[in-house]
């Protein structure tokens, strides 16, 4: 049998440190061979670079918010860790507001 998903129209989850962000239906990254890397969405596209690409690549339903923060703090080890965390949380919330992201527990 085909696997069927039934996303609920309301309540797309909340951004906690232990929730798993995942790109919403209809949102995907373009292929690695296509430059520039872009988040494709219904009727829109968001060009990604550096940290934003690192974040979106990890929004696969397998990384927690906390893991993403730890990963990026390693990659951007010269930046102030608290600032990295705040920037990531801000960006994830923005993507959810844009309906590009869901959070699962």
């Amino acid at each position, binding site marked *: 049998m085909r696997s069927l998903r039934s*996303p609920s*129209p309301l309540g797309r989850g909340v951004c906690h440190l232990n929730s798993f962000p995942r790109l919403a239906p*209809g949102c995907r990254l373009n292929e690695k*061979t296509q430059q520039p890397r872009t988040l494709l969405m219904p009727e829109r596209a968001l060009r990604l670079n550096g940290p934003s690409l690192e974040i979106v690549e990890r929004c696969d339903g397998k990384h927690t918010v906390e893991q993403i923060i730890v990963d990026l703090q390693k990659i951007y080890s010269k930046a102030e860790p608290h600032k990295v965390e705040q920037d990531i949380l801000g960006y994830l919330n923005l993507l959810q*507001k844009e*309906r590009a992201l869901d959070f699962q527990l």
Partner: protein
Amino acid sequence: MTSTIPNPLALIAELTHRCPLHCVYCSNPLELQSRTTELTTEVWSRVFKEAAEAGVLQADFTGGEPLARPDIVELVCAARSPGLYVNLITSGLPLDEAKLAALVDAGLDHIQLSFQGAREDTANEISGTKSHAQKLRVLEWLRQHGIAVTLNFVIHRRNIDQLEQMLAIAESSCATRIEFANVQYYGWAFANRENLLPTREQLNRSVEFLKREQERLQGKIRIEFVVPDYYAKYPKPCMGGWGRKLMLITPSGDALPCHAAQVIPGLAFENVRDRSLHEIWEQSAAFQKFRGEAWMQEPCKTCDRRELDFGGCRCQAWLLAGHAAATDPVCSLSPIRPKVDAILTGINAAPPAQLFVKPAWLYRPNPA
């Protein structure tokens, strides 16, 4: 020399002009192309590949009704395989569960389902056929397949007072995006304009309602609202500027800068059967004609807003001012604006009884 012309970002693929609906505001030209002139699967496949190579990110499959093409699943594969994001804009009428499953498996990214109203009687009147009940069935299948969905309600005088019921349909569905798009007056909508333009009071009420709802549904459902530009102070940045972002291919392969460009006399369109998409984008005279600012007249030429709205819509300038390089006449700075105001006054001064009686619609026929 490197090119200074930006890439096209989206390709609007009008796969066919055939359609089971006869909507009175259809954006197709009055002269519809017949089935015998339609591009083959092979040519479309080449076009999608060339589009991806030229930097296009998204392909919008539209028509007519794109599902009228028997090769629609193959076409979705052909567009998805070079990496394009594939959006199917459909009435949902020819859809069944097996076809939907095949489309999803082929890599379809998103479906935009059009609605003609919230109530069966209005929706069927506007589409000229029994269509509403099938759309509600389609909504249920879409939920089961978990595909991303936008609902598109085309708004006008006869249904703008049903926004609350339309939103209720959307909220109970799996859609994460809703477009309330007021009719824009081209093609069949231009022919039916006197019976479609909402009153100012209707428009104001709808704007207030949707502002509230946008706030309430933030983060859950994205609501887009397109106002009828006859009521606007400044024109819309039509197609994001002529030859700047979008390219439309007609069923027979003509490459146009927008849906309505064929109304402008003297423009010669090149065909994707004869030339590559990239060459047409960069070199075709029709795309060059209103690209940039050199063609602009006053007041656009020296206007601070010219990089925001690019002078508005060239087709509307032709339709209302009789001159395609004129400032879009809906602009409050246009010398022709009084003509638009006179059209609005005609609607707003008319007795309500006259405005809401069922008109003699000019329905869009189905081409051979």
